[in-house]
């Protein structure tokens, strides 16, 4: 594939008509309205349309994964059977059903929501805009990546209708080799999603290398680009390992090749090594892009230069590198050699340091800023708080002696929800609010927005703080029923999940409402200075009417707020 593909759009009619429109009217048709046929969406090569389709898909899958989360939490409200009896008669069948629910929840959230969330949905939309480019380097590959995601999602839906899967999202052998559920279709789904992720990563690497505008050196890039770049490297290097592992597991199940199943002479611990060799880096695929989002949110809404730019940039790179070297911390009790556990534990702490550096630099960015506490910023602040808890509790788990006690308990469940949901997803939702006016051209209700954010924040903490406590008290994870002494913690947690759900439904409500009756968004509603704020909301098909020159993304002094339009206008100073 060559670079010239960027310009070789088959839908060149579209381009012409768009170009014609813009010459006549400054704010001519946007990428949303320039063509209206179904095929102009289904076969579009425009990164914004692909990003938007990804966004809709990801949000829909978030709803589906969320329904399973609520089923799981409702079931756990009591150690007695709560809602499984509605669907199954015997105690055994009810337990099976619960196991399918938590597996489906986890697999959907990880593979279909959080991994593609920021990079593929938001990143696709925003990355070329940040670069002042017309599109990503390989638009066709981009569309291919989206369709692979769709096919992966279809496999998941198929799994749901063909009886579900009960292995947990980790697919540990030998259980996954013998479980009677639809394991193979799910593995194929994840395999395909892996390629979707690799394609996005490849595209971003090339785009960032090749398509930066004049004047934008590496250290003048917005930090979001550093984050997506580091992530893309992980996606390209780690995901193939997952793919091969899943293929081997498929062969193990279908042909009994004896690599992971001890009954055929295989080694189940080998599977864990392979799985985490991908899946630990993958947790950084889930968190580094949202960190990039938060760097943009905090700087923009504080209207202050980002503090410690180089430190934040390098910490993303450091995380990407170290993330390949710590997978064994998921296996401290598996029987891997003691020496290996010690080495993995040591390196694990090296991942915590760059995370801490980021948090402190964000705080310093807020100091003496002009902080506008709108919805996007509230999500950014929630992120800092929740990520702090997520990172700090990671330290407990990295300490060998403590992890012996905490491994496979609810403490781990709470830890990874703080980082994957409290940080990863909250960062994604924050970014969604930040770029919503740019994507849709509409402003949403800020009042409801803040209420929604606060509900999510309170609900989230109420859901997961009790899980830390019951976990360290000894409650194992993936339990359908549990000892009575843990009941009160589960009840708090379930109530919390309802509060959080209320927050998300409210969010869905006002976002949809904004599409129908929202105020028209100005070009630059928040006072950002990266390039996406220098083009209309929503942008025209070719992104910019005139080829933009690189700005200093964190210089906010040249912008003046106009209360009448709600826009930050560029000051023309001498």
């Amino acid at each position, binding site marked *: 594939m060559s670079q010239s593909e960027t310009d070789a759009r088959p839908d060149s009619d579209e381009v012409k008509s768009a170009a014609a429109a813009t010459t006549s009217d400054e704010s001519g048709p946007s990428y949303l309205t320039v063509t209206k046929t179904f095929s102009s969406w289904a076969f579009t090569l425009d990164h914004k349309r692909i990003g938007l389709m990804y966004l809709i898909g990801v949000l829909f899958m978030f709803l589906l994964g969320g329904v399973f989360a609520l089923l799981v939490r409702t079931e756990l409200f009591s150690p007695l059977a709560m809602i499984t009896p509605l669907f199954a008669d015997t105690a055994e069948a009810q337990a099976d059903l619960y*196991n399918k629910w938590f597996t489906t929840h986890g697999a959907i959230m990880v593979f279909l929501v959080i991994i593609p969330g920021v990079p593929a949905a938001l990143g696709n939309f925003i990355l070329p805009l940040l670069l002042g480019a017309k599109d990503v380097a390989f638009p066709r590959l981009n569309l291919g990546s989206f369709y692979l995601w769709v096919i992966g999602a279809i496999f998941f839906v198929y799994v749901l209708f063909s009886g579900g899967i009960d292995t947990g999202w980790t697919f540990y052998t030998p259980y996954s080799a013998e479980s009677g559920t639809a394991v193979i279709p799910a593995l194929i789904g994840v395999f395909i999603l892996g390629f979707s992720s690799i394609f996005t990563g490849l595209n971003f690497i090339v785009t960032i290398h090749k398509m930066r505008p004049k004047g934008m050196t590496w250290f003048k890039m917005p930090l979001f680009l550093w984050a997506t770049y580091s992530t893309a490297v992980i996606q390209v290097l780690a995901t193939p390992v997952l793919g091969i592992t899943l293929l081997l597991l498929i062969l193990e199940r279908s042909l009994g090749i004896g690599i992971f199943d001890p*009954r055929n002479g295989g080694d189940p611990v080998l599977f864990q090594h392979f799985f985490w060799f991908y899946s630990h880096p993958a947790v950084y695929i889930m968190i580094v892009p949202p960190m990039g989002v938060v760097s943009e949110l905090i700087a923009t809404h504080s209207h202050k230069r980002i503090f410690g730019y180089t430190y934040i940039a390098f910490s993303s790179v450091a995380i990407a590198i170290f993330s390949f070297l710590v997978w064994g911390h998921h296996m401290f009790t598996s*029987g891997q050699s003691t020496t290996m556990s010690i080495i993995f534990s040591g390196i694990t702490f090296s991942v915590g340091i760059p995370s801490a550096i980021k948090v402190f630099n964000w705080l310093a960015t807020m100091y003496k800023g002009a902080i506008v506490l709108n919805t996007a910023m509230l999500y950014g602040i929630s992120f800092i708080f929740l990520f702090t808890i997520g990172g700090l509790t990671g*330290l407990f788990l990295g300490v*060998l*002696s403590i992890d012996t006690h905490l*491994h496979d308990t609810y403490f781990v469940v709470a830890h990874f929800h703080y980082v994957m949901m409290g940080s990863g997803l909250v960062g994604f939702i924050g970014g969604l609010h930040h770029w919503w006016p740019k994507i849709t051209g509409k402003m949403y209700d800020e009042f409801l927005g803040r209420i929604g954010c606060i509900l999510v924040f309170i609900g989230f903490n109420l859901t997961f703080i009790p899980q830390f406590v019951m976990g360290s008290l000894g409650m194992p994870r993936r339990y359908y*029923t549990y000892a009575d002494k843990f009941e009160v913690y589960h009840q708090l947690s379930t109530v919390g999940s309802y509060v959080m759900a209320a927050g998300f439904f409210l969010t869905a409500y006002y976002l949809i409402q904004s599409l129908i009756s929202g105020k028209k968004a100005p070009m630059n509603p928040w006072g950002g200075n990266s390039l996406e704020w220098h083009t209309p909301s929503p942008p025209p098909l070719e992104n910019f009417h005139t080829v933009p020159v690189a700005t200093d993304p964190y210089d906010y002094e040249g912008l003046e707020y106009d209360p009448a339009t709600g826009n930050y206008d560029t000051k023309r100073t001498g």
Partner: protein
Amino acid sequence: MIQVPILLADSEPSFWLPAPVSNFAGPIDGDFYFVYWVSIFFLVLITLLLGYFMWKFRTPPGAHAQSHKDHHIVLEVVWTGIPIILSVMMFWYGYRGYVDMTVPPNESISIVAEAQKWAWNFSYASNGASIPGMSDDFNVVRAQVRAGEINAEQAEAAEAKILEKAGLHVPMGVPIDVTVMAADVLHALFIPAFRVKKDCVPGRTGKLWFIATEPGIFDLFCAEYCGQGHSWMHSKVVVHETVEEYEKWLEVAGSYDETLPFDENGKIVWKRRGCISCHSIDGSKKVGPSWDGMFGSTRKFTTTGTPGEAMADEAYIQESIRFPMKKIAEGYPPQMPVVKLTDKELLWVTEYIKSLSQNSGGTESPRKEN
């Protein structure tokens, strides 16, 4: 390095941790609280700064920042350096604790813990006694408590009764060396009160050891997901106050009452050795075929891929137990583990299966009732 952590450990059950009753609980809790207080310090610091900045520097849209200072090398060094130092300390404490946990002392009591779907079995090296976990019986008691049929005191008595011939029993103050194994899929032996955990990996053996420091009865869980019965695969650890008491228990518990009829002992084998978790005696289908009416019936099976048929006589049944993978009953997954029964156990359980074809019946154990 200085051993601060141990000073931080509680000696009672606390908000965060269960009662510490092994030699490892103190040090591990100390490590836990060290990380905990460091975390609380940073969480409070960060939260206060966040809250203060949010409040102090909040403005309506349109204002400009008061300063654009965007780097400060001393700050960067400080907030990189302090976490590094604290991390090294945490790593070091954890490493020390972990290494202690990997090497059992020589003069310890050896017990083998075998996990299978979904039952525990503990074999005692000193007399070969094989004692079941009896998850199902504990589940029955719990169900009765929740249904209000018995009160807490009666439940305690019922559990004590079960524990006469079940559970992991150890004496206080003596190192116990537990070898863990799994017959089918991954499991993990987890005793929260002792702060120990080890994965049971099929095809491998694992080790954990501890010294119990207080007498009592404590939870034992399966911590690694193993399918349908994962959450009801639990048992108890009983810590006896003296070695004599423990040995007395072991002698009684490890023996069958040979004066009982064969089929009655067979029923005990069914429960003790975990057959119960996959084979019902009332005709209901579980992972494996029910034993109800099995004896004397015609069985369809496949053997290395070819279908076959046979009458379930004594030879058939004993072969199925000794070599479960040889003939796979039609309609069931090839999942039965090899459970090593003694000759007598095999005889008794065969008699028991036989008896089930004469008069059907028996009770199912409720797990999570509706």
